[in-house]
């Protein structure tokens, strides 16, 4: 087992009276791609969103347990929630570019934390657009609205935007589900590269994607973690009956 960045202990989450996450205990290894796998409605997106405390935006959500980031509990932390969120970049199911130019989308995270020097921003924007293979495509139209990009480009822009706040972790919620196969592959390849510097948590229900890029797999079903293991063990030698059934395609 590698050094873990995130350790979740006895996490329970209720939405109203509904018990969504049931006693979750997991570890997420540093600088690896951890895939949270499971059929839709199993709570994997909720688990991901609880990591950067987006779940608390909904007043009817109640949480208990511990989410330890580098040993520090995020749920009882006195640290400002914005500081916590800056440590994690979020990539959503569909790209939601902010209503501003391509340039400003990437600069946004830096600007809101007080970095305003033109030269610094120019430098960073170019750097992160290059990181996501977008620079060559957009360098002549940086001032155009981000909405003019294709969906695949928008998703890469969202990745660049998330990387720009220099997070430690990348949270990705089925990031390729709205993309064409080519763009999907680009994102997957990018992740494989990014794991050298970042810890990546990827939610997916696409088995092929999980097999392709996972280093570590957490399999969820009905709000519970059924099995977690290194990718090779998980796919070649699953321990649980439900995992075997899922891998054989008996349910989705």
């Amino acid at each position, binding site marked *: 087992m590698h050094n873990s960045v995130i350790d979740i202990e006895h996490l329970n989450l209720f939405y109203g009276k509904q018990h969504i996450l049931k006693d979750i205990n997991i570890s997420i290894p540093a600088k690896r791609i951890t895939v949270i796998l499971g059929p839709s409605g199993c709570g994997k997106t909720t688990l991901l969103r609880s990591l*950067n405390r*987006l779940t608390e*935006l909904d*007043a009817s959500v109640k949480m208990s347990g511990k989410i330890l980031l580098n040993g520090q509990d995020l749920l009882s932390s006195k640290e400002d929630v*914005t*500081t916590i*969120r*800056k440590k*994690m*970049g*979020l990539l*959503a199911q*569909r790209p*939601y570019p*902010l*209503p*501003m130019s391509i340039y400003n989308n990437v600069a*946004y*995270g830096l600007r*809101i*934390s007080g970095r305003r020097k033109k030269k610094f921003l120019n430098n960073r924007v170019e750097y992160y657009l290059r990181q996501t293979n977008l620079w060559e495509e957009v360098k002549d139209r940086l001032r155009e609205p981000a909405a003019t990009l294709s969906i695949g480009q928008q998703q890469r822009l*969202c990745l660049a*935007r*998330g990387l720009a*706040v220099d997070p430690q972790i990348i949270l990705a919620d089925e990031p390729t589900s709205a993309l064409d196969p080519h763009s999907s592959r680009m994102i997957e390849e990018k992740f494989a590269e990014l794991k050298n510097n970042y810890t990546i948590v990827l939610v997916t229900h696409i088995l092929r994607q999980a097999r392709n890029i996972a280093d570590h797999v957490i399999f969820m079903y009905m709000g519970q973690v059924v099995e977690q293991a290194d990718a090779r063990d998980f796919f070649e030698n699953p321990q649980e009956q439900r995992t075997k059934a899922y891998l054989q395609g008996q349910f989705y």
Partner: protein
Amino acid sequence: MNWLKIFYNRKLRNKIHHSWMWISLGIVFVLPMSLFIGLMWKSAILLNQQSVFDLLFSSEWKPMAGKFGYLTFIVSSVWVTMIALLIAGPVCLLTAIHLTQYAKSWVLKIMAPVIDILAGLPSVIFGVWGILFVIPLLANHIGPFFGKSVSGYSILAGAIVLSIMIIPFILNILIEIFQTVPKELSEASLALGATRWQTIKFVLLKKSSAGIVSAFGLGMSRAFGETIAVLMVVGNVVHLPSGVFQPGYPLPSLIANNYGEMLSIPMYDSALMFSALLLFVIVLIFNAISRLIILRSSH
């Protein structure tokens, strides 16, 4: 062919329904056009005798002498509308932000019907409220506070009553606009470490800027044409107002107070029609400008 068969002929029915739609569409299109043409026609008598420039920029209003200067009315209307919007605008914006972004969902559930009731109240009720509450407030407290002895019947009174009237109207549109901004967009901003307020400022307000402009534009059109509530508190004195505590005489009040009376005076009828035309055109311009802004910001 028997009648029943004709009755159930679906192609025929299709044609009938189609023509109904065309007729309805025609009414919607022709009505404002004919209104405009009618007003032009009626005001032509006045326009033939005096230049538009004189009419718009003179404040001399002596119908008996055949002198019709609309400046007093135009200035009154513009003041009342602008001050009303100045009061209502921030209130609506902040309320809508609070209701859609901060408040628990049950607050909006309670507030929505309250706003609707406020929007549905007959305007004469707002007028009475103005006379009973706003006028004494201005005469006894606000006026003396600024060292002025005033009757209360003034531009400011009209603007205050008007602002209360357009608040539910603008507020409803703003709430709807803010609700259409996807939650995920705000979340994207929050996930980057933005605070609630930064997210509102840079994402919510930016995304809905065109909608906000159109909401204010529509509110302005409405305020400009509102008649009875303003008429009851604004003073209706034909004198170019030089301050907000002075009485004014907006265009709609001019028409409402005088049409049907004194029509024996030559050209008076035409003069009132011209003021209606002015109202029509100014509201049209407001609408056009707000639409233009929407169009430009959506590109």
